[in-house]
């Protein structure tokens, strides 16, 4: 509905604190808080990305990032808060720099993917970007000399990769796909004891686990908790599932098991899930049915 709603907890209830309307002309596909929490970025099908600044509880649109040829699918802030990444159906990933006077300038336009780029997210600690696409691949990007380039391409999924999430260490990635699987990717640094080949100073990434047979439809979202390591998935079969790595698990061939399934979490496709960064076990889900639901995962 082209509107952004900010929700806050008041006592026991969650209340809609602000409504940001008239920021975009079309669907808002993705939003993201800056690391400091004072800014919000919103990416829209109208090909722009807006930056909202929070001042005393009120939000003001302070910048509009233009340049993408068509629908922007995602926006992500780097941990430093000085870089942003946006990705679009125009197959490109753009990197933006925040200047001293709060201006947002294009630092790079990366045309590495061959199809619609669904999502882009920064590494939790390094200045590295990951993106995934309708071209079935996941790509990693780093700044080299003067420009950003693709340093790794992760191929294994047989259909659109909708979303990726780094684990807390940043050495692993979980990805979800239209091929109804979740895949776990492990980073192997140069000189790794496992003997995995690496090129120069670049790490290699290998798919070390595939979770198949759990989901009945396309998996739209996945999130790896940085507090307790749980992985949550959002599926077109209306279910939310939580996975956990088993106690006895080989780093190079990890085993993950399904902890719980919430059937009929929503009455339509579950489009997104996210762990609360502060409260372990608390997660939010969004759906085509128009609801946002909050869930508590209780482990025995």
């Amino acid at each position: 509905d082209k509107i952004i709603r900010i929700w806050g907890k008041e006592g026991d209830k969650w209340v809609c604190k602000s409504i940001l309307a008239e920021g975009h002309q079309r669907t808002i596909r993705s939003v993201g808080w800056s690391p400091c929490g004072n800014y919000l970025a919103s990416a829209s099908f109208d090909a722009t990305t807006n930056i909202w600044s929070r001042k005393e509880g009120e939000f003001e649109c302070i910048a509009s990032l233009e340049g993408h040829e068509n629908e922007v699918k995602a926006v992500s802030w780097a941990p430093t808060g000085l870089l942003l990444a946006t990705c679009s159906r125009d197959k490109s990933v753009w990197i933006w720099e925040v200047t001293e006077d709060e201006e947002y300038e294009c630092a790079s336009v990366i045309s590495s993917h061959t199809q619609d780029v669904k999502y882009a997210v920064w590494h939790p600690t390094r200045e590295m970007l990951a993106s995934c696409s309708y071209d079935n691949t996941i790509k990693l990007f780093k700044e080299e000399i003067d420009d950003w380039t693709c340093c790794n391409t992760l191929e294994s999924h047989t259909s659109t990769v909708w979303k990726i999430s780094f684990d807390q260490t940043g050495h692993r990635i979980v990805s979800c796909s239209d091929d109804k699987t979740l895949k776990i990717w492990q980073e192997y640094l140069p000189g790794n004891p496992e003997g995995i080949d690496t090129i120069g100073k670049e790490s290699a990434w290998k798919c070390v686990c595939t979770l198949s047979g759990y989901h009945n439809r396309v998996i739209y979202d996945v999130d790896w908790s940085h507090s307790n390591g749980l992985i949550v998935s959002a599926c077109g079969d209306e279910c939310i599932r939580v996975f956990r790595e088993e106690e006895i698990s080989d780093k190079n061939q990890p085993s993950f098991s399904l902890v719980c399934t919430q059937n009929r979490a929503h009455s339509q496709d579950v489009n997104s899930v996210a762990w609360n960064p502060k409260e372990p076990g608390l997660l939010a889900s969004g759906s085509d049915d128009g609801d946002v639901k909050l869930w508590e995962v209780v482990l025995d």
Partner: protein
Amino acid sequence: MASNFSGALQLTDLNDFITPSQECVKPVKIDRKPGKVAKIRIEDDGSYMEVAESGEEKKLQKAQITLNDCLACSGCITSAESVLITQQSQEELYNVLQENLRLQQASEVNKKKLVVVSISPQSRASLATKYQLSPQEAHHKLTGFFKKLGVNHVFDTSFSRNFSLLESCREFVRRYYESETNKTALPMLASSCPGWICYAEKTHGSYILPYISSTKSPQQIMGSLVKDYFAAKQGQTPDRIYHVTVMPCYDKKLEASRQDFYSDLYGTRDVDCVITTGEVEKMLEKENVTLGQVEGNTAYCVLSGFGSPDGGLGSHLGGGSGGYLEHVMRYAVSQIHGSSVDSLQYKTLRNQDFQEVTVEIEGKRPLKMALAYGFRNIQNIVQKIKRGKMTYDFVEIMACPSGCVNGGGQIRPMEGQTNNELLQRVKESYDSVPCVQPDLWPGVKDIYEEWLGGVDTEKARAMLHTQYHGVEKVASALNIQW
């Protein structure tokens, strides 16, 4: 399908939605007669015959789509630029040369076309590097190579670049003085890069076009020189000349096919065919010869680009993309302040492809100019203009990172050689040609007088300047906001 166009062009023609019902935007005049039903029969030779109810047969005219039509429309299934680009290739040149040969043998010499090839200095540097020759040697051998194939004359676009630089300088100073009353006089944006122009026309339309310099690129000025000045000297009409240019990129093929560079009167283009440096390499391979083996030909005329006082090749200050900033700044300082600058200090900003030059002017605000190469830097320039935060008076905009010497049509690195290593060597080759001020090149002043009747005449404006057209996005199934 490999896309060799500059990054700016590639991003403006993207679509992964295939809608079979998408109408081609080409305004083919289809005479729709309501109420009549007819059948279409496809003949053995592939032509289409319309068979009316009465049995009357009519051959249907083939719909013709030109390169330019497809530039305007983003709706087709394929990336049209890539498909139609094959119309302009070394194959076409071979066809024309073969036709000439056939006419020669059939004693129909009068029907032959005069074939002219104009080589860009960036292509020459790329070829010189690959075949380990000096630019001078490369020029002589390329002349020899083309002439042996039947080409009549070989020129150098460094010569026509003089006009492009001089006109840009004069245009800037004029706009500088106009800027007090005209809001869109400054910043002036360079116009010689077709990748930039096509992007500006398609994406930013009438908003940004007033800022773009009206001066033609060296390729197109050479087109005017060859088809108007040279043709007259040869006693030929423009359509009797087949003009080929050798360029470092594919975007130049699109520039040559612009409607503005087509003469309705003679039914001919100023530049008939653009071949890339890589395509010349293919020609050499086809002829089974390396450039070093070719016998050089030292024939030349004023258009051959021998601008150096010692009678050798000449070049211009300011880098491998023509040196527009360098020349515009120096000229502006000399005109506005009456002084000359020894050397310009370039300050690198966010990246190597974004540099600025500031020159203080006594009693006035300083002159600030910038180089912006590559799509990401073009973005920032355009956005700054849009938001009214532009601080530069002139920007030399080029679509390719590192400029024209790094164009998409240049010869690729060899096995084991990195892009950067090759680029450095091509730059060295390019820079090894001595620089001469545009107004001091032999022939430049004379041609202004003889051909154009002087500087700033009506003919000069017609021959050396052009205009731009914003592309309206056609409402179609694809553009509907879902």
